[in-house]
């Protein structure tokens, strides 16, 4: 009955394991077939071609008419099912026709499985991460039984990688849990815990990991029961009702495109597929999924997102030593400075289980930070993002200390005090004296040199820069800045801490502005100059939003605060000279105390903080209208190229370890359009030669040539010139002086 797939012409790996070795077939008792996914060539099971091949072979041996009446598909271990599709392979795909064929072949296998499920009881016994393809495989079984563990996470995260669930997810999930829930699951790409997955009906039964295999067999043989969640009437009124699904489709599309601004084609393709799931059969679903995925998986958006995903996965290894050894786990910490930044860092650490003392000289500041911490934790408790016991622990983990006291057993200090060298040094010296020998001293400085700070402290090898971004809880990036003498194990330990806090660390050289602020500086300055020269503020914002920035530059300046941005700009100017000379456009406002959101007014009127509107008098700062006539392209290009040019300099100087890290930092640290894959990915898509031409043209533009530092700013970076000549790519560039740590 089952047809074996045709693998001819598909890109099979070199270390192809022998046929049949990836799926073990056992018949432990009469009527029961157990298929165990256990590929010998993988430490983590992924659904690659050899595995699909062997699954197809295994399914072909199952004989519902010959006495097999129950089938269990399981992983190596209860909490190791399969990690979805082979993401590394996605990166290499370039031929849409090939992708289409591969998808159709897999669909064929799943259709066989689904057909078996009609004549016998099939059970997927899952646990641990069950993302994407792994869940789609499970959905072709009659029941999904999941191991109850915090490690178990199920979902279809494909849209996060710019593709869509291409192995039946777009029709099997809506059929199982209904159109509205499936729409949310697929569009958010969220991975659900067992409790939520059972509530939604993705999972039909939950059991303890230790019992998973036994109960799965019992379930398949009918010795125990599952109670699948029934949609009941909703199935007819919603899922199968064209009118209802049309409305859902329309709303979902509107909401999604408002966020994506049309930059993520997968979203627009997947919404109608989910909405009409009930009206298509497996064949039709296979065809349309294969059609869509062949285009998406080979497209640039997917490649960009996968590249960022890979880089962020690689960042998770920063806490490991050269031989894979784990870094020291930091469990007791002190944060000095209970301002917005210090308070938020301390609060996050406490929530993540680090016993934290928050020290400040002001009792008022401490109280404020504690109240804010409790507010944050209570909010999470109410939204069920934290259990009661975890919430209580989070509260217990934060203690206030007036002055620096009680740090005799702390392992790390993070200072977030005023940005002046003498104050920071005094604090670090006091910490060095009171903390145990060798304890890590981290500074959250954004504008001072870590090496200079370290020089003032005994044992400078334990001093490291740990640069969080504001707002701490929302911003996913942390820059780790080793000074000249910082010990590698210190870098690894703080990388481990950043990861434990749910952040993505990137190691950055100790240069002014580090990476993110150094890149943001020229970008924001250029936007300001365009505004000053007469470009309508709304137009400027819209153009950069359309380019893919998460927030317009003027809005961003409002959020950051003009005083802080100005301070950062001045220190960049000091360090890098003329090319970073900041415009003084905002001085009049700063003088009158109008510094952005925190003062209630900047470019925007913040009287309704949820919906800021452009301030009525915003054009009063425009000194001329000379740039009002610039084309859309030129406006975007001026901003983006100032960013790209500086990024090229950073890459060449080895400010980060490599191009992937730089891209990761731009996406996570400044929200640079993820679908472009980061600044350098974007630069490669334009091409070095073109960049050079554009930069030369800008450097020659009359207003830029005449302004102080304008020409140097747009003078193409050496690396761009070099790559333009060799026709090279930024992503292939290896910095000569790559960071030691």
């Amino acid at each position, binding site marked *: 009955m089952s047809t074996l797939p045709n693998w001819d012409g598909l890109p099979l790996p070199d270390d192809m394991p022998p046929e049949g070795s990836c799926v073990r077939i056992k018949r432990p008792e009469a009527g029961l077939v157990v298929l165990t996914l256990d590929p010998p060539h993988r430490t983590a099971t992924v659904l690659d071609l050899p595995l699909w091949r062997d699954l197809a072979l295994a399914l072909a041996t199952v004989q519902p008419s010959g006495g097999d009446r129950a089938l269990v598909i399981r992983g190596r271990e209860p909490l190791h099912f399969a990690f979805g599709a082979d993401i590394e392979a996605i990166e290499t795909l370039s031929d849409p026709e090939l992708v289409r064929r591969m998808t159709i072949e897999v669909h064929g296998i799943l259709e066989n499985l689904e057909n078996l499920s009609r004549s016998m009881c099939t059970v997927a016994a899952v646990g641990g991460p069950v993302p994407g393809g792994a869940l789609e495989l499970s959905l072709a079984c009659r029941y999904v039984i999941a191991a109850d563990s915090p490690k178990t996470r199920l979902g279809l995260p494909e849209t996060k990688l710019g593709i869509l669930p291409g192995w039946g997810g777009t029709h099997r999930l809506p059929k199982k849990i209904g159109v509205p829930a499936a729409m949310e699951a697929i569009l958010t790409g969220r991975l659900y815990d067992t409790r939520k997955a059972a509530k939604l009906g993705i999972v039909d039964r939950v059991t303890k990991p230790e019992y998973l295999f036994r109960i799965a067999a019992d379930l398949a043989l009918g010795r125990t029961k599952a109670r699948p969640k029934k949609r009941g009437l909703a199935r007819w009124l919603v899922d199968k009702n064209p009118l209802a699904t049309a409305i859902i489709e329309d709303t979902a599309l509107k909401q999604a495109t408002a966020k994506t601004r049309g930059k993520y084609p997968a979203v627009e393709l997947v919404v109608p597929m989910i909405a009409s799931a009930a009206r298509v059969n497996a064949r039709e679903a296979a065809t349309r999924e294969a059609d869509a995925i062949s285009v998406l998986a080979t497209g640039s958006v997917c490649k960009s997102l996968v590249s960022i995903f890979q880089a962020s996965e690689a960042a998770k290894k920063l806490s490991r030593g050269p031989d894979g050894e784990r870094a020291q786990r930091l469990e007791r910490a002190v944060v000095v400075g209970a301002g917005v930044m210090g308070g938020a860092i301390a609060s996050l650490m406490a929530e993540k289980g680090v*016993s934290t*003392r928050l020290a400040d000289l002001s*009792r*008022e500041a*401490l*109280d*404020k930070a*504690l*109240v*804010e911490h*409790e*507010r944050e934790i*209570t909010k999470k408790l109410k939204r069920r993002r934290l259990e009661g016991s975890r919430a*209580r*622990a989070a*509260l*217990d983990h934060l*203690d*206030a*200390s*007036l002055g620096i*006291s*009680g*740090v*005799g*057993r702390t392992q790390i200090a993070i200072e977030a005090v005023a940005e002046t060298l003498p104050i920071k040094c005094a604090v670090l010296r006091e910490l060095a004296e009171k903390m145990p020998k060798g304890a890590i001293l981290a500074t959250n400085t954004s504008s001072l040199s870590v090496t200079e700070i370290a020089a003032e402290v005994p044992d400078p090898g334990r001093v490291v820069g740990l640069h969080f971004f504001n707002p701490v809880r929302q911003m996913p990036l942390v820059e780790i800045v080793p000074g000249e003498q910082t010990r590698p194990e210190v870098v690894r330990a703080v990388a481990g801490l950043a990861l434990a806090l749910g952040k993505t660390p990137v190691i950055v050289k100790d240069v002014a502005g580090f990476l993110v602020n150094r890149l943001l500086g020229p970008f924001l300055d250029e936007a300001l100059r365009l505004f000053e020269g007469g470009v309508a503020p709304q137009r400027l914002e819209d153009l950069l939003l359309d380019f893919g920035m998460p927030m317009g530059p003027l809005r961003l300046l409002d959020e950051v605060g003009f005083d802080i941005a100005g301070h950062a700009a001045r220190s960049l100017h000091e360090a890098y000279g003329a090319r970073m000379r900041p415009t003084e456009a905002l001085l009049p406002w700063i003088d009158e105390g109008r510094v952005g959101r925190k003062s209630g007014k900047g470019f925007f009127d913040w009287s309704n903080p949820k919906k800021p509107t452009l301030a009525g008098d915003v054009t009063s700062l425009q000194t001329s209208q000379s740039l009002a006539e610039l084309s859309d392209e030129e406006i975007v290009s001026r901003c983006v190229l100032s960013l790209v040019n500086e990024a090229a300099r950073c890459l060449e100087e080895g400010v980060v370890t490599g191009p992937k890290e730089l891209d990761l930092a731009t996406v996570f640290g400044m929200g640079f359009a993820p679908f472009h894959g980061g600044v350098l990915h974007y630069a490669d898509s334009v091409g070095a030669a073109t960049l050079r031409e554009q930069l030369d043209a800008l450097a020659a533009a009359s207003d830029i040539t005449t302004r102080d530092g304008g020409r140097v700013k747009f003078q193409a970076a050496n690396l761009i010139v070099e790559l333009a000549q060799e026709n090279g790519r930024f992503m292939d560039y290896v910095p000569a002086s790559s960071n030691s740590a």
Partner: protein
Amino acid sequence: MPALCPSTDIVLAAGLRTPFVRAGGVFKREDAGHLGARVAREVLAQNALEPDAFDELICGCVGQPFDQANVGRVIALRAGLDESTPARTVARNCASGIEMVTEAATAIEAGYGETYLCVGVEVMSSYPLVFGRKMTDMFARLAGARSGMAKLKALSAFRPSFLAPRIALLEGLTDPTCGMIMGSTAELLARDFGISRDDADAYALQSHRRAKAAREEGLLSEEILPHLAAEARPGARSVEHDDGIRDDQTLEALAKLRPYFEKPDGIVTVGNACGISDGAVAMVVTTGRRAQELGLEVMAHLRSFAWAGLDPKRMGLGPVFASAQALDAAECKLSDMHCIELNEAFAAQVLACTKAFESDDFAAKHLGRKKALGELDPKRLNIHGGAIAQGHPVGATGGRLLLTAARELQRSDGELALATLCIGGGQGGAVVLERGDN
């Protein structure tokens, strides 16, 4: 009647307490686990103690929260003590905060462990209201009812009177054997010893004035850990001082209060009785040797302690009975005491104790000795005020008395101190301390 003069050098090291706060006030959303853990954690942090430094945590608590059985264990875990460190909760009513220390001392003396973290805590704000018997019975029948009809039948027994709650706080303050609420026992002592309303009010005023002076001189700040209450609202501030101290207390104001327990002729008012409070205290009880090893400052050596029983109706005289034995065990006299912390449950009770301490008759009749114990010199008695001003969170008070006495010995370079209190149910407890650096 047991007394102990340990042969081991047992010391009180490193102690702290939260401010004592009037119940139903700033700490009303606290729970004992949270408050106790906070002060325990701070003792650990400030002294750089390892989480596995202790043999056991002993918690003194009278009204354990119903959702935190063995609240001592809850505190140990929430304070970050090692999981392998056991914890228990002990109670001796108002003296639970001394009980935890004498328990630790007894254990050390017996060779059962050497290092104890003692945490006394009471959140009287969270004492529950309890459904009465009839309501409880109805719930039981309802839970047992299978059919809808049976449920309806069970519900039909309901009467509005079932809703009247039993107030755990009030019933806890009533002695079930003699049926007297604590205030009435103080009234009885006032009649026995001829204490007048004016004397009681004058004593109460002095307690407030002394506490205020101590606060202003910063003497209390040494032992108090400022604490921001759970569920504080934005703009709220940490509490840094006991909030029961009335800076503007006057005799006139006290005189206006009506007797609370025995109207109209009684003398005990809310003004000359201790308050109902929330608070916690933590201290390390260990040996001198171990304290040195851990780098702990020795606040005081424990010279002796004693527990005594007496007529429950006159429980307020407990300190006289217990002190006599503790002093005997330590082989010293009342006059040797540099300072005395005698818990101020009621002004009338403290004054009655003073008279009993001084009375040869009382000594002969009740203590089996010819001469009185001696004079309770007002200049040495509760010199920084007491529970009337500061409040009386029952589980924590005993620890507070020891802490204050030990600190005072260090501050004024005294030799010996006595900490003693009366206990509902007719008991007394007393501890003799010796200055730390001896």
